[in-house]
Structures are given as C-alpha cells and as structure tokens.
C-alpha cells in the first residue's frame, strides 16, 4: 500500500526540516521525501497550503479502560486522539484495576491492537495497587512493553520507596513519571489556594504541595542517578526548580499541559467543575512562568492529561466532582492559539514538544519523519479559527475550553501508514 502526501510544508523538528516536500509512504514507513515525487497510481493526499508533521505523541492520557468504560475506552480514546493529530499515546495506569502487573499491560496492548486505531503504550504502576507501599513487578512489565512507571494521582509519599523506584528502573532505562503532590499539604483541597479559593470558600491546594515534591524527586534523582520525568507542572517555582536542576545536569525532564498555560483559577468562578483539575489551575504569574519555561526549553514536553469524566459526575457540587479535563482534541489549537500565535515559540519548536521530545523522554523510536521512520503523520491547517463545541469524539465532554475561539485544526492523521482520520472522520 502506497500513499503520497503532496505539496505540504513539512516540519520535522528532529531533522531541522521546514520546507515544502512530498512524502512517499510505503508499508507503514516513510520511504522517500523529495520536492517532487511523481505520481504512479498511489493514493494521494493533497497537502497544499497545509503543514505536515510527525504524528503527535501524548505521554499523559487516561483511557479509563479497564474499569470505567462509561468515560472512555481504548477504542474511543484512540479515536479522540486521532482527531487531535495524535498517532501515539501513553496511557496512565490508574484504571480499575490498576495496571500493576504483566496481565494489565498485556490487556491494554491486546485491546489496543484489536480495537484501537493508533499506537498505545502503557505506563505501569510504580507500586502494587498504586498504594505506595511495595514496588510493582516493574521488570516483568518492562518486558511486556511499558514505557515508564507512574502511580499517577497517588504520588509515592514514602521517599525511600521512591528512591528504590528510581534506582530499580535504571536497569531498564525507563523514566519514572512523577505526579508531584504532597498529599498532606493538598488534603481536602479542590482548587489552587489563593484569592479565588478564599472568595469561593473552597479548600485550597497550595503551590508548595507540588513544589516540595518536585524538589524531593529531583534530590532523589541526584541521589540515585535514575531518570525522572515530572508530570504536569503548573507553578513558577516548579519551573525554576527544574531549570536549576537541569543546569546541574540532573537527568530530569518535565511536561506541562495546555490548561496550565491557557487558564488561571479565575476559570473556577461560579463553581465551574470543568475547570476542576489536579494539579489545579494557578494564577496569571504562573501562566507567564510556564510560558517562559516552554520558551527556554526548561519544559520539554506538552502533554494533554486527557482525563475523561461523565456529565453526571461533573454535574455535582464542586467538592464532589472529580478532577480532570479531556484534552486530546483541543491540544493543538490551544498550542497554536496561546503559544505559537503569541510568539512564545515557533511552530517547529511547538511541534517538537509534542513529537520528538516526548519520544526521547520515553525512548520511543518515533516522533520524526526521517527516511525509514514509522509513517506516523499529522496534517495540519494552522489558519482556521473556530469555536470549540461539545462535539468531541471522546466519550466524555468535560472541557473548560468549550465556547473558546481557537486557531488551527487537524486535517488528517496517519498512523503506521494508514489514514485513521481525515476531515474530522
């Protein structure tokens, strides 16, 4: 099966490419890139006036299967991802039951192969049952195909166990993906601690709940020589702590999410549960610092933290509603609108943060359009402005971005040489 993507502006940050090229795809691989490839009866996608990039990689997705298939499934989540230009997603292990064994890993891989339409790489638990007490069988899960370990929203509070996790994973060269939150400082909290939480009478989560754990985990990384990736950072000081660590050559990488450079805790006003996320939305000064961290490279990756929840669960009292927003389908337009258009970074550098950078953190042989690479490709139109409606492919609709006018759309997504989404379908 052959496919030619014709006449697009190819942006491939890993190779420093930014020019008009045709791409020939054959047997799921990129076989040729040239300024003009003659047609020979292949299927053609006309990419004139469009941008062609490596397919996006989301290193922080919640697929909810097994356990909460009413919120999302591997089938629906991969379709939602494809709608957003993603060809690879890494699913967090906080399912029911949690992915803390080889059985869980294999379930995801098999289901993704049968029902999914893009690449799915599982993340395994750090500890059994995500309880923070005993290490899960990380080696066996690694053999089965995990790309990292994380206890997700239940951070390992015991520093000794975290130390062992960082030491143990050195053998496998997989990162520990850390959700940094001191559970004692954040206990009962539902939004950022600040003026808004004071006015709304909601229990706040201080920024230090994140920052103290970012510091701890970096110290433990220095101690062990392990590989840490800090998930969804949100505060000015988190950016600064990681910046310093990188200067000291500690092996740390990090991500943020579109909600943390797009929204402040003002979005919670009126007890808007779609803006209830963990870590919580912070303040304008944090947004500024996050953007600076993105611009200067302190923040390596942008991830979605796609966290689907049903309408019924979100239509509760603010304290009772679960944390999380979906994000796969709004990711690129938010990056385009709030980062590229605002000159925080170039389109090429923005693409790097959702392609080659996460691939490098996770050790995936993906995220580029080099000759011979997997034909995982996104075709983008950066220009059209449209209003976000609730019409998502995801089974869940919990998004604080509904109603926003955003720029840029995904025209087609190609995973392993196969067109998995074109013109919204």
């Amino acid at each position, binding site marked *: 099966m052959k496919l030619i993507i014709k006449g697009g502006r190819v942006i491939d940050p890993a190779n420093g490419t930014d020019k008009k090229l045709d791409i020939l795809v054959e047997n799921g691989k990129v076989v040729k890139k040239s300024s003009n490839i003659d047609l020979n009866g292949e299927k053609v996608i006309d990419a004139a006036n469009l941008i062609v990039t490596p397919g996006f990689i989301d290193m922080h997705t919640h697929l909810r299967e097994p356990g909460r298939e009413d919120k999302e499934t591997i089938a629906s989540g991969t379709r939602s991802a494809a709608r957003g230009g993603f060809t690879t997603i890494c699913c967090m292990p906080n399912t029911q039951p949690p992915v803390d064994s080889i059985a869980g890993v294999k379930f995801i891989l098999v289901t993704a192969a049968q029902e999914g339409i893009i690449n799915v790489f599982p993340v395994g638990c750090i500890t059994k049952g995500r309880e923070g007490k005993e290490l899960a069988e990380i080696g066996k899960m690694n053999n089965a195909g995990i790309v990292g370990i994380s206890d997700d929203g239940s951070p390992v509070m015991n520093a000794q166990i975290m130390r062992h996790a960082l030491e143990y994973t050195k053998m496998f060269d997989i990162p520990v993906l850390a959700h940094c939150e001191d559970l004692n400082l954040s206990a009962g909290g539902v939004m950022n601690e600040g003026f808004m939480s004071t006015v709304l*009478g909601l229990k706040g989560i201080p920024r230090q709940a994140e920052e103290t754990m970012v510091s701890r985990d970096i110290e433990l990384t220095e101690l062990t020589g392990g590989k840490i990736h800090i998930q969804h950072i949100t505060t000015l000081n988190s950016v600064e702590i990681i910046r310093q660590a990188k200067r000291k050559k500690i092996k740390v990488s990090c991500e943020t999410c579109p909600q943390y450079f797009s929204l402040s805790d003002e979005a919670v006003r009126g007890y808007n549960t779609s803006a209830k996320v963990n870590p919580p939305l912070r303040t304008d000064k944090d947004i500024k610092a996050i953007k600076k961290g993105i611009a200067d490279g302190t923040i390596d990756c942008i991830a979605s933290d796609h966290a689907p929840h049903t309408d019924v669960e979100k239509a509760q009292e603010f304290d009772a509603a679960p944390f999380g927003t979906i994000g796969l389908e709004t990711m690129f337009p938010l990056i385009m609108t709030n980062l590229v258009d605002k000159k925080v970074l170039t389109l090429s550098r923005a693409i790097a943060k959702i392609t080659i950078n996460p691939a490098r953190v996770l050790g995936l042989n993906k995220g580029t359009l080099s000759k011979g690479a997997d034909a995982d490709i996104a075709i983008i139109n950066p220009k059209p402005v449209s209003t976000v409606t609730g019409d998502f492919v995801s089974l869940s609709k919990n998004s604080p971005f509904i109603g926003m006018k955003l720029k840029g759309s995904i025209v087609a997504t190609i995973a392993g040489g196969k067109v998995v989404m074109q013109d919204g379908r």
Partner: protein
Amino acid sequence: MELKSKDLLGLEYLSRKEIQLILDTTIPFKNLFTRSVKKVPPLRGKTVVILFYEPSTRTRASFELAAKRLNADTLNITVSSSSVVKGESLIDTGKTLEAMKADFVVIRHGMAGAAHLLARTVKASVINAGDGSHEHPTQGLLDMFTMREKFGSISGLKVAIVGDILHSRVARSNIWGLNKMGAKVYVVGPSTLIPKFIEDLNVTVCYNLKEIIGELDVVNILRIQKERTVESLFPSLHEYHKIFGVTEEMLGKSKKSLLIMHPGPMNRGIEISSVVADSERSVITEQVTNGIAVRMSILYLLGGKASEINY
C-alpha cells in the same frame, strides 16, 4: 427598584443599592411583630421548600416562620449527610422540587457552591442559607440590619469579626456586605484560621483583639468548632478561650456603645463568656428576631421574580 437576580446566592453578587433595598424593606416587616396578628398575605399560594443538608435549628426555624408570616406554604426536607453519599444528586433533587412546582428553595449545604448548582438547575428562586465555607447571605444581612438599627447607618462603622475566618461563611458574607455599605472590617483570630488572601477582600487582619478594641463599634463573634483542633489548627479550646475568648476583661477599653453580636449557637465560656453574652451590649437575641424580618423581606422581594415563573 427591584433585585436583579431570581436568587440570593451571596452578598458578593448584590449591589449596595440592592442591600439597601433589602434592609429598608425589612423595617415594616419587623414592625409587624409587635402586632397581635403577625401574618400578611403577599406570598399566599406560593410554596417555599426548605432543603437542609446540614443540621440547623435557628436558620431553619427563622426561614419557616418568615415564609409562614408571608402566608406561603412551607415544606421542610432534611437530608442527612450520610444519605447524600448514596442518595440522589442535588440536580435530581432540584428537578424533583421543580416538578412539585416549588416557588422558592432555601438551601443549606455543607459544600461551597451547592446553591449555585441548584440555582442553575431550577426556575424557582434559590436562597442560600449557608453553603460550606462560602457565604451565608441572610446572616450577613440580618447582622447589618441589626447594626443599622442601633447606629442609624453602617457607613463608617468599625466592625471586627472574631474567630475561624477560614471556614466561616458568616465572615465572608459580612465582609462583602459591610465593605459595600462603607464599614471598616477587621478580622481577628488565630493565624491558622485567617487565610492569607483575605486581606485582598479589603479587611485588616489582627491577632490581638485588645489592640483594636478601643476603636470598634461592633464585635461579631463566630462559633468555634472543636473539630478544628483535630486538624491541628489550634491546640485546644482552652487555649483558644485564653487568647481569643471575648470576656469582660477583653472589652476593658471598649466604647460604651460597643455592640456584641454572635450568629449562634454560642459556646459559652469558649468564644464568648456568659457575662458578655448576657450583657446589655449584647444584641444576640435581637439578631434572631431581625433574622425573621430580613428573611421575610428577601422572600417578599424575590417573590416578584417567583410570580414570573412560567411552569
């Protein structure tokens, strides 16, 4: 002049003029109480549902009397907190009340924003009778009515709110209301119970009531919850009493005209001494009387909106 919203969710959302209107409208209702027949007809045929998710005697009784004195029918629904967990959602309860054609829903709930959620769900006028640590607007209004009655005007008064500011919906409603009416507001309490950002609401933070007592016109004393010691917010009720308990000794340098207020129920001997609670400066029982009149005023003013409901 009328109220802009169909609901009363908090004093944050009312203008100075609206607060003025509510307080002015309260006067004739209070005058009714000295008559042998205390009932007037404005809400005849209307249904007021009093939906309480937290235990309360005084606020519930006050709303019920206020509604009955306006000739409305009342329906009391108590939901124990244990049945919230397995019971129906607030939105479903709201839809049920709507199907019963309620005109008003008075809601007390342990979670901030519950009244907002209900107000978005139902056509009925929703009155917030306390939502978590957020607001308790009718308490704020009755406190202000009591102050205005005693001093003639709220503008220029110096009012201290003493106690657990962090968790207090009474404090927040008083702060919004008093600032809008031109009073100067102090908050006094243990530093663990005064949120750092409260100063941005235009209040002055103080950790020692004695330092400012000479300037004050009103001391509004909040109930202190014993459970806060479990959270290590302060060590013991005894220590709280020693430092923040309002006693005669504490009031030594105060103005003669100082008013002592408390939203109740009181912990005598903890946040307030019995002598102070029963002294001539105390208007605590008058607050209770005024509470009914203020709630009549609110039901009456929102009644105009309720009559526009198109079921």
